[in-house]
């Protein structure tokens, strides 16, 4: 499934839409080159979850955690800076993944063997300075449900 974005605002809107579907334990993996808009998409997800503090890229801190409305927790990961899979243990990646929060992982494709069995993968490609293509891929039943849910929500809105 493909979504097209013609502006940063549009990418953020996709994130807001996805947030409506997200429950605790859901995992969203964001892939794409530097500047593709992964953090913008996360910004939208956070807004949709009722988080209004600034969402900045956690490249340096690796992970940032936010409390959302209704007792949900958002964990925003950026694995860009990590080189070895062992470092995921250092940053308590697996512990947090199984702690019952909503997980968004930028650069999750760097460590495919570290990812859970069931997640939504969104690959963003840069078509031009402003245009992006977002490819939705459901890995596992829950991932698939999220991909279909988001695609039909966007289609319904257009």
């Amino acid at each position: 499934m493909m979504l097209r974005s013609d502006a940063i605002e549009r990418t953020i809107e996709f994130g807001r839409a996805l947030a409506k579907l997200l429950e605790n334990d859901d995992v969203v993996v964001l892939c794409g080159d530097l500047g593709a808009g992964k953090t913008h998409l996360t910004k939208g997800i956070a807004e949709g979850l009722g988080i209004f503090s600034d969402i900045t890229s956690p490249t340096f801190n690796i992970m940032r955690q936010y409390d959302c409305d209704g007792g949900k927790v958002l964990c925003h990961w950026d694995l860009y800076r990590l080189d070895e899979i062992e470092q995921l243990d250092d940053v308590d990646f697996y512990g947090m993944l199984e702690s019952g929060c909503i997980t968004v992982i930028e650069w999750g494709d760097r460590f495919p063997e570290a990812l859970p069995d069931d997640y939504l993968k969104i690959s963003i490609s840069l078509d031009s300075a402003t245009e992006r293509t977002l490819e939705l891929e459901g890995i596992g039943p829950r991932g698939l449900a999220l991909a279909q849910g988001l695609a039909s929500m966007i289609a319904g809105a257009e």
Partner: protein
Amino acid sequence: MIQRANCSEILIAFDTSTEAIALGAAFDVDRASLGACAADFPALDEAIIHTDSIAAKRCANTRLLPSVDEMASAKGIAREDVVAIVCGRGPGSFTGVRIGVATAKGAATGLGCALYGVPTLDAIAWEAWLAGYRGALGVVGDALRKEVYPVRYDLREEVAVRLNPDMVDKPAAASARWAAEFAARGDAIMLAGDGLAKFLDTFEGAFAEAGAKCEVLPEERWAVTGRGLLMAYYEMKRRGALGGGHPQELQPVYTRLSDAEENEKIRLETTGAPMPGVLVGNPEFDVRASGDGKLHPSEAANLPTNADAFAASSSADIPSSGVGEQAQLHYRRGGIARDAAPEATELGLRKPLILAIETSCDETAAAIIDSERTMIADLVATQVDFHARFGGVVPEIASRKHTEAIVGVVDETMDRAGEALGLNRSLDFSELDAIAVTQGPGLVGALVVGLAFAKGLSWATKLPLIGVNHLEGHIYANRIANPAIEPPMVVSLVSGGHTMLVHVKDWGDYEILGQTLDDAVGEAFDKVAKALGLGYPGGPVISRLAAKGNPDAIDFPRAMLHSHDFRFSLSGLKTAVMTYIKDELAAGRELNMPNIAASFQRAVVDVQVAKALAAVEETDVDEFCLGGGVAANPELRKSLAEAIGAHGVHVTLPELSACTDNAGMIAAVAIDLWRKGEFLDLTADSLPNMEL
């Protein structure tokens, strides 16, 4: 009966490897006096002062020491009677194990007592043994990632014997292996461990399929308990397998295989390796396989506790004969001169003396500061000669290896402080007034080690604990560089994680004028360096390369230069550099690396200078300072000094070494917090996203 002569010698035991806190206290008796079997339980009941297992999902850091403190008060345990801390080494949750180990190291260091590690899963086996179970036992620890830590034990009448080293495995593989073994044997295996909470069905299914029998122990026997840890300790003591007891020695058990090892294991299994599931490249397995007990020096610290499991098999026939039961001489921290009155007077003039610990990112650091903000000792791990300190045990000093380095760094800091104060001995913790530690922001896995250690130290020494904001530390680095500066002033904080302009109205009173909306400056340097294939960290490489290039060669965007506020955006610049590189390569042109580096750096610096200038003008201050790791960038320093200096504003640029992470700046903040009486209690947790 218990030998009462030992009764003022007390052990405190804990483990936080699982989702429960195991806690216990006992007299340091000899195993022989406890009797050989269940019939002698009354003796054990007299030895064990307290045993518990407290549910604490992901909150070991906030609950461990309050529980220890409560136990000590309730049971009347005086700190000076504690001869050793017994700590579960894992395996388990990585963060859980590190919190337990770091707390134990801090407490043992502060008490000046011994620290011994026991294998976490052994405690579960001993708990079952104490409950009267005998026969084959399989302990299944939860390893996360849908994996388990399976260990087989033989619960004999007089002793629990471990049959395999700590390892990680798939539940299906471990259960199938055990099921096959017990189908062939015909008898039943008992099962326990927190891994069963997730994988009980897998194990029961495998046994049913193989036609083997298993008996699942009641759920209350799955947990690690205080008395289980203490029994594991007594048994290791009996065998003389405890090790030296120096708090530096204890290291967590890491069993997770690296990818290379995993591939090797699969290769061995598919080519008919004799022992499926046994670790490749694991020191424990090496001990067993080679049989000569030879270990690489860096693994020497693990030797006693790893090797003991196998010693158990051969010495199980002499559990209470008294063989090898020489009185254990516990490690004691040395060099304490308690009658040094003249020195104390001299020290009194310099009080408060505060020890600060910093582990927010890559560096393990400690420093001691006096009331005049004089840095008495100021160390980072990379400066410590660990080989000289610990005679051959060389901990790997890599990023985030704080657990291995922290005791050495603190010990060395205390030594150097004693030297600097002319004491001819190490400074004693009793001569300090507080322990300070970086509470945030930073990497969660790194912060918890420093905080847990500092809390353990604070509990043991009864010294107040001070939590310091790392960013405030960077602001205070300027105060160390130039003691004369006084607020109001503007500080530009630029590091790998932060890019902000702060209006310092007074020490401790800050207004963030603006910060980055996306990437930090240091992060942009790192990402561009990576894209150019230059490695990490990016700052130094880019600035060296930039010195050889033309800063006007490429017109990269200056984002938010005219936004008329103090917010930054680096994401667009980063994207522009990526696009430029892509386009150049697509056009078949060779990249002019120095020009890209210089032009990128110029774009960053232009915005930094313009915003800093505007901030100084708007706040009408006479003082400007720089802080954070990127403050080491020569081009940024030069441009800021010129531009802002030209406006008649005094500019302070801390020394390069003071710009990067260090504990001196944490100590400097701590002095002010000490004066204000702002302390943390034992429930304090690290705050990875702490704000200024």
